[in-house]
């Protein structure tokens, strides 16, 4: 049905109502008090007003509203019927008929007449407040326009809805309200059923359940509140804004359970503090402790937990969207930040040591806090510098493409672990060695098409460049399915080049590592690509400069894999602190395998050989005393730190083992440039300096 049809229908209805009204008015006279008739007069005016407003007859509706109010006073005996009122109402009735017929025509004239009649009415019934718009100021709350508060950012609300026990008897189904909420957005609902009584007290008409709802939506608070508009008087509805798009960012601890319970008013700070202390002792979850202590009910905890989950979800979503809007910062600013964090770690170590030494409880707890914060700061700062390894891959693809074309080989580069993150500096410094390794693979590794085909391989060679995390290291490997290396050839070559003495006994794996020796190049002919006398030793050097190591593995005829093992970061390492005659040294913790004791008895038993029997395995060791020319007598019981260097176990004999230490690496000055045994220095907690040992070099020197 169209609007016009309703309008026509209303006109007919209104005309009938107006004749009714006329008939009733004509029966009345001064002092008339038939309440039934007065009521129906009121009702007629009421219907004209209500129905008129529905179908666009606002003028008539507003006009009728005033008359209705007058008759409301009459039926409530606030004013009496007078002849003047009867006559005026009859005039008004005629006027409404005119307005119905006229529609929008003669609007100005009709408005003027309406004014006149209403002014006259106001004189007769002075209590009328002339506010025709009053009745349409607020339609049912839910119907507020959506655009009114359309906020673009996601809002997160906590709604606690506790329906009145008799909610069902007013015809409300609370589940429908929850359903409506669900329609608004991401919604977690927890029901509390603690109030449900035992069966004998149970009233099937009553509602004993209440709900906690966490809602994330774009709707405004008013729109959410409007869902409960029909029940807000009788039921408890508390709506709190947990997040308006900014609150969660400002309150990083907002997702701690204790905080949530506090915020909800389920517990007080006085409840929480002793529980938190107990939590430290008992290693239990705070929720469990609170329930144990009878501070809050289990369902409150599970509700708070779901809020926690919800907040975390919201946060995750947010950080996902933030990722796209990253900030570019000059690298030097980051470097400076890393330096500062490094200093901070050093100072924090000092504070921690002081705290242990002084043994003041407050100081200890401050030191612990600072330690936690510094750790967080360090990890965060380091992570800022992390870059995905994949950014370099494009360049390598180009390299492989160009070179294989030059050499008329068919080679494809496959990459894996693009998303592996590595310190920016490390990635930059890796470029050159990787280019070198790739060139080697393309030039020497992958055979010509013909050779490949006659060897029964696919004519297309494959190089796999992959990166993966392994503890505090990243492993980057370049594998090809080429000819592989022949240990015998390398062995001969090494002797030829006087890299090893003839007759040296070596395992195939050891032989393979020989290609990293300076001046080693096996290419039969010098090509543009590689074999210009710059061998893999350059690779090894650059990787070692990054405190990494390089390893090669090859299967003759099947291919070669070069693996670079690199630390995640350059600035701070986990060190292992040892002591020699009051001087402290740091070994990289990652290469420490175990510590054993070395008694004089052990030394004697080895009959002058620097070997130690560790569970049946003979492990050679070096004496730091000897390396650093420390003259004094060693203590009776020395310690051996067994390390893994280049796949070998080697012991380092020290006076005393102290333990692991967050080591901020400081470069040594120019004067120390040539001391290869030491790769850097660090400042210890007590302010003294410890040297960071370069194990590879130490072992070789020994």
């Amino acid at each position: 049905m169209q609007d016009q049809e309703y309008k026509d229908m209303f006109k007919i209805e209104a005309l009938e109502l107006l004749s009714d009204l006329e008939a009733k008015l004509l029966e009345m006279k001064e002092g008339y008090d038939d309440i039934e008739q007065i009521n129906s007069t009121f009702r007629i005016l009421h219907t004209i007003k209500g129905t008129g407003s529905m179908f666009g007859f606002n003028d008539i509706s507003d006009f009728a509203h005033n008359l209705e109010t007058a008759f409301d006073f009459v039926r409530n005996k606030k004013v009496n019927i007078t002849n003047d009122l009867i006559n005026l109402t009859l005039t008004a009735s005629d006027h409404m008929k005119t307005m119905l017929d006229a529609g929008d025509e003669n609007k100005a004239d009709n408005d003027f007449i309406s004014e006149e009649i209403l002014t006259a009415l106001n004189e007769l019934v002075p209590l009328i407040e002339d506010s025709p718009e009053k009745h349409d100021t607020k339609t049912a709350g839910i119907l507020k326009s959506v655009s009114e508060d359309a906020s673009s950012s996601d809002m997160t609300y906590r709604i606690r809805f506790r329906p009145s026990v008799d909610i069902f008897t007013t015809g409300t189904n609370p589940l429908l309200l929850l359903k409506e909420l669900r329609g608004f957005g991401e919604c977690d609902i927890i029901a509390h059923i603690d109030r449900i009584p035992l069966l004998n007290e149970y009233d099937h008409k009553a509602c004993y359940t209440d709900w906690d709802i966490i809602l994330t939506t774009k709707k405004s608070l008013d729109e959410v509140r409007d869902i409960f508009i029909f029940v807000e008087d009788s039921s408890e509805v508390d709506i709190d804004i947990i997040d308006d798009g900014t609150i969660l960012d400002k309150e990083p601890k907002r997702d701690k359970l204790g905080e949530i319970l506090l915020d909800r008013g389920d517990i007080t700070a006085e409840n929480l503090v002793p529980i938190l202390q107990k939590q430290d002792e008992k290693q239990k979850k705070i929720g469990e402790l609170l329930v144990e202590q009878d501070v809050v009910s289990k369902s409150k905890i599970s509700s708070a937990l779901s809020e926690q989950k919800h907040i975390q979800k919201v946060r995750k979503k947010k950080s996902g969207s933030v990722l796209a809007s990253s900030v570019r910062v000059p690298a030097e600013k980051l470097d400076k930040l890393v330096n500062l964090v490094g200093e901070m770690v050093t100072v924090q170590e000092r504070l921690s040591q002081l705290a242990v030494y002084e043994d003041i409880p407050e100081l200890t707890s401050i030191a612990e806090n600072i330690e936690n914060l510094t750790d967080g700061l360090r990890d965060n700062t380091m992570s800022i510098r992390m870059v995905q390894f994949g950014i370099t891959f494009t360049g390598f693809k180009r390299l492989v493409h160009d070179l294989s074309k030059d050499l008329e080989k068919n080679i494809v580069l496959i990459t894996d672990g693009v998303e592996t993150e590595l310190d920016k500096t490390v990635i930059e410094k890796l470029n050159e060695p990787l280019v070198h390794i790739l060139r080697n693979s393309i030039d020497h590794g992958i055979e010509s098409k013909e050779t490949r085909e006659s060897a029964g391989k696919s004519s297309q060679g494959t190089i796999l460049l992959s990166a993966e995390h392994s503890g505090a290291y990243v492993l980057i490997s370049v594998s090809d399915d080429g000819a592989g290396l022949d240990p015998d050839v390398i062995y001969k070559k090494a002797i030829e080049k006087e890299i090893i003495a003839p007759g040296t006994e070596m395992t195939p794996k050891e032989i393979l590592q020989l290609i990293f020796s300076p001046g080693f190049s096996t290419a039969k002919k010098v090509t543009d690509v590689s074999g210009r006398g710059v061998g893999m030793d350059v690779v090894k050097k650059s990787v070692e400069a990054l405190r990494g190591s390089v390893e090669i593995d090859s299967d003759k005829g099947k291919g070669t894999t070069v693996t670079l093992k690199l630390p995640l970061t350059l600035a701070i390492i986990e060190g292992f602190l040892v002591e020699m005659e009051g001087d402290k040294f740091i070994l990289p913790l990652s290469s420490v395998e175990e510590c054993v004791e070395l008694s004089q008895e052990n030394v004697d038993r080895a009959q002058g050989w620097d070997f130690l029997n560790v569970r049946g395995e003979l492990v050679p060791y070096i004496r730091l005393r000897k390396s650093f020319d420390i003259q004094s007598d060693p203590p009776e019981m020395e310690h051996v730190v067994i390390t893994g260097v280049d796949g070998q176990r080697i012991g380092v004999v020290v006076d005393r083992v102290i333990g692991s230490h967050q080591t901020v690496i400081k470069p040594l000055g120019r004067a120390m440039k040539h001391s290869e045994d030491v790769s850097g220095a660090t400042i210890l907690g007590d302010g003294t300096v410890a040297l960071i040992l370069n194990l590879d070099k130490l072992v070789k020197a020994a």
Partner: protein
Amino acid sequence: MSKNIMILDDSPTIRAMMNKTLKDAGYDVIEAVDGRDGLDKLSGSNARMIVTDLNMPEMNGNEFIRSVRVIPEYEFIPILVLTTESDDSIKAVSKAAGATGWITKPFNPEKLLSVVRKLVD
């Protein structure tokens, strides 16, 4: 489940408008002109919801609601009240009588449906 909704209003125009709106939304409509008529038509109507005007001849809305609430079958039925006033005291009287919610005139078909959907599945 039944899709029957009973509407009570003494204005034929409003009844026509509500009838059309609800039918188009897939509901079946039972019309009544006032409270008395409504009560007569209610028994056996299998109504799931009632929309009623307040000011009607022959039993007004609130009286009607009170009478409906004592019928066991309709104890929990959602009852929506049509009112011209946003005055809270008038709503409070209806609520006390057992009304579930209200909608203020003037309203358009969309408003009516959104409120009806709030109260029935």
